[in-house]
């Protein structure tokens, strides 16, 4: 569990999602990275039914990550979150009458996992209702747990294969009250994925058609 950075890579001009993903794979393999299995991250949306006050109910997101297959993370956008064991899904089924699962809103990212020295790079195709909507790239530097310490190092690494698409320091870390020298935990990674999935959902237009 090291410092992670999740970013979205726009689809290259005139190419499809799959082709852009293949280009990224090639760049990584040229650097010397080694394929190490697959990964998936998914996110289900629940909204409260029967809200008495009439305000729009908050959305509860329940996420799973293949890095921690026995856990399940529940979080609110910009709000509190928790990690629990797999029985939390069973509990959500029991809560069916109070929380409805918006099945059409399920977003997931699946792809290949690469290992380069102490880095883990996961390049995934973000899909909603089985249509590819974008590309997510997660870079994890496993040796360090303090984001403030190793951000420059990670940026240098990301520039070597993402070029101009390299992101800035994720807001998850900058918005923490205690600052950048607090050790990371799995909720930081999932918050970043949640932000990315949120952006992908809002994107009405499928990438590749070139119209925004």
């Amino acid at each position, binding site marked *: *569990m090291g410092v992670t950075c999740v970013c979205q890579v726009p689809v290259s001009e005139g190419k499809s999602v799959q082709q852009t993903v293949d280009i990224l794979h090639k760049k990584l393999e040229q650097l010397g990275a080694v394929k190490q299995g697959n990964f998936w991250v998914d996110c289900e949306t629940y909204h409260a039914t029967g809200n008495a006050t009439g305000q729009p109910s908050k959305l509860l997101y329940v996420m799973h990550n293949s890095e921690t297959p026995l856990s399940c993370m529940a979080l609110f956008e910009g709000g509190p979150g928790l990690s629990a064991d797999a029985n939390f899904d069973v509990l959500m089924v029991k809560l069916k009458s109070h929380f409805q699962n918006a099945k059409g809103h399920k977003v997931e990212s699946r792809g290949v996992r690469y290992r380069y020295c*102490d880095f883990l790079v996961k390049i995934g195709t973000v899909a909603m209702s089985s249509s590819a909507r974008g590309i997510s790239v997660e870079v994890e530097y496993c040796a360090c747990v303090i984001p403030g*310490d190793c951000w420059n*190092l990670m940026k240098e690494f990301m520039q070597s294969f993402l070029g101009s698409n390299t992101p800035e320091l994720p807001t998850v870390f900058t918005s923490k009250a205690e600052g950048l020298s607090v050790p990371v935990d799995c909720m930081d990674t999932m918050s970043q994925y949640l932000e990315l999935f949120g952006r992908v959902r809002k994107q009405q237009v499928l990438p590749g058609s070139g119209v925004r």
Partner: protein
Amino acid sequence: MADVMNVGVNLEAFSLAINAIQALRSSVTRVFDSLKDGMKNKETLEGREKVFITEFQDNLQSVNRDLNELERLSTLVGRPSESHPLHNSGLLSLDPVQDKTPLYSQLLQAYKWSNKLQYHAGLASSLLNQQSLKRSANQMGTSAKRRPKVQPSTLVLPIQYVDDVISRIGRMFPDMSIELFRPNGTSAVLLVTLGKVLKAIVVMRSLFIDRTIVRGFHENIYSEDGKLDIWSKSNYQAFQKVTDHATTALLHYQLPQMPDVVVRSFMTWLRSYIKLFQNPCQRCGKFLQEGLPPTWRDFRTLEAFHDTCRQ
């Protein structure tokens, strides 16, 4: 440097005591023989009984006399000297087959030789130190106090002294904490936590550093049975490299007469890793080389270099 076993045994009393044991044995045998033989043939029953009883009493009294004699002699015999030069291995000398397995005499020879070697090496090092071959007169870290000559045998130091030295070094730097454990006998095992970057386990032998292993801050330092794991390597290549460099540092910082100066120098060097992920390499200016941060720290200047960038 004589290693002759001091014979505190009074040999004459020893031989007299052995004779006394033989006398005691024979008088006890006489008692049981007379009991076995029973009463001798005499005219009257009282006569027979009387003779038997007097004979029995005489025998018992002789046993009593012999026992007292033996006790008196045993106090005179004395005890062999407590200070075996080789402690339990002195018991090897009890092996009677001397020519087939001359273990004990060879052991004594080897021990005498190594003691002489240590003595001569100490003399030589004090002479050589007067002619310093290094360019800088000071050792690494000006905090190293010049101590007067420490006790000649720095291999056997009292535990309390080692504890004191380590706790003083632990207070030197605020971002480095040192915990001392003794899981296996008298050798100390230190757990050095450097900020939130790394944890190093340093195995000592009295005040000399034997080996060290460096792992990441979030890695598990305990083995399955709850004890400190001093063998498994780190999971990350960066820390595996740092462990190799630390082992090189142990070989570099050497000073047999002043082991506490060595420990201080090593800790000062280790502390420079607090910015392992933050400092770029001084030579190439980049953070990463083949995926590794600059893991080498120069022994004199403590500057960061990549392993492949150092001169």
